[in-house]
């Protein structure tokens, strides 16, 4: 016994392909490139600022970064920015939760059961082709101009990518892995829990991410249809009042919020996907 123990210890300690060491090595380049993405927008901002300062451009309709920054600061100081951000985020989250829930459930049913797929998939594909704005008048008639219709519109936007992703992932589960479950006589529930759910997890998270992205697109459409707060309102207000800096400020806020929300989703899902054999640096 002791003989084999020492043998295995030796093997373990001298193994050159220790994943821990390779993982540390692999993370170094990706970390140093993490800031590379900020170079291009920074360069453009500096160039534009310089162009206006030097008198090459007027910047009345395209204000320089300093003006946009000042606008953002003023909005933040008065608490308006936070109010609008919270309103928009609240709508996106509510719509995302609803759309993701129904998209996952109906997508799972359509992926797992041929009957369900044959029955509902054609209809859903047709509805998917309808432009988001087309729903606005109907939703306003049905649910009024307040929160309900906005959340519903966002939920519709989130629903489709999640539905498609989940249904496709379940349909695409490797039959060979299912057979492994069968050989070990997993019952229906154990098969779902131990084989099917983990197998669709990566595709589900990607579906949620694209759903979240669409949620942010639809929230603007929703807030265009009449809102007294929210970043979409800030956009419309900026247009009507002739304040391009305010428009750009809310566009930038949208970009930051969207990126942050996606980042949170990626961060939460990362520990679940450690096993994936993919170029994770690209995610």
């Amino acid at each position: 016994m002791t003989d084999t123990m020492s043998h295995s210890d030796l093997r373990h300690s001298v193994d050159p392909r220790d994943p821990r060491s390779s993982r540390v090595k692999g993370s170094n380049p990706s970390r140093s490139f993490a800031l590379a993405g900020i170079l291009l927008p920074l360069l453009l901002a500096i160039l534009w600022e310089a162009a206006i300062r030097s008198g090459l451009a007027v910047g009345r309709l395209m204000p320089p970064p300093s003006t946009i920054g000042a606008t953002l600061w003023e909005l933040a100081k008065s608490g308006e920015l936070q109010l609008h951000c919270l309103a928009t985020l609240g709508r996106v989250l509510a719509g995302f939760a609803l759309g993701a829930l129904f998209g996952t459930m109906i997508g799972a049913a359509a992926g797992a059961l041929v009957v369900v797929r044959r029955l509902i998939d054609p209809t859903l594909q047709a509805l998917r082709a309808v432009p988001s704005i087309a729903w606005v008048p109907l939703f306003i008639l049905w649910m009024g101009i307040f929160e309900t219709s906005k959340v519903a519109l966002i939920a519709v936007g989130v629903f489709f990518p999640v539905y498609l992703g989940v249904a496709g992932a379940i349909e695409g589960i490797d039959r060979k892995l299912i057979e492994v479950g069968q050989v070990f006589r997993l019952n229906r529930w154990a098969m779902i829990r131990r084989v099917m759910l983990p197998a669709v997890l990566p595709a589900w998270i990607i579906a949620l991410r694209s759903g979240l992205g669409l949620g942010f697109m639809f929230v603007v459409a929703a807030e265009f249809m009449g809102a007294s707060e929210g970043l979409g309102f800030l956009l419309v207000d900026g247009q009507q009042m002739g304040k391009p800096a305010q428009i750009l400020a809310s566009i930038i806020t949208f970009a930051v919020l969207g990126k942050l929300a996606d980042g949170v989703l990626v961060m939460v899902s990362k520990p679940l996907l450690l096993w994936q054999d993919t170029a994770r640096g690209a995610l």
Partner: protein
Amino acid sequence: MLRLSGLSKTYADGTEALRDISLQVGKGDILALVGGSGCGKTTLLRLIAGLDIPSSGAITVNGETIKGPHPSIGIVFQEPRLLPWLTVAGNVGFGLADLPPQERQVRILHALEKVGLAGYDQRWPRELSGGQQQRVAIARAFVTEPKVLLLDEPFSALDAFTRASLHDHLLLLWAETKPTVVMVTHDVEEAITLADRVVVMRPRPGRMMETISVTLDRPRDRLALGFDKAKRRILHALDRSLQPEKAAPTQKGADNASHWW
């Protein structure tokens, strides 16, 4: 003991994959199935594993009829088929979910040590080479201590060196619990290295043609005289199995005679 009686399989599209397979494999025996492609070797294993249902005939293990996947039958597939979201230990212990964690752990580590992967229990499958992954798959099949173990060309994708070392690991594990082994292979030398009996099959539809006993002592030496003799007999039988059946009556005679080998 594994007994197949009059086993036939015709697929829904009319393809006759297997016709009238009858054979017995005693406890602890290793049987190799060889034959050209399309002779139904893999179909036969899938029937025994309970992953497909025979069109006629019956499979019994120790008198118990097999109608679906059964706890006393394990299988190693052609590919490792590891679950990528489980660690090596999680994969090996996949069939041991009912055991208390401590006993489970002991059996997993023991099996991993036997296949030469001690210390690899916390790795992900993606971190292993093809040969290592297949060893994990072998450990996963052995760890539930099946009475019958099916191997479907488990070494076919590996290079000759890896293959030889996996033969040793396989025999080491086999020696512990002495399960009945039925293996499919394309490699005649592999069949002689591992098996007590080699069944040569004839394709379209898959039938048994000839059974050749290998009585060499283990561990077997590829350079021994008897090894070469067995190899020539099997190759000869394989040659005949792939020839068109113009001499049907005499072939039929040989078919029947083979059962008495």
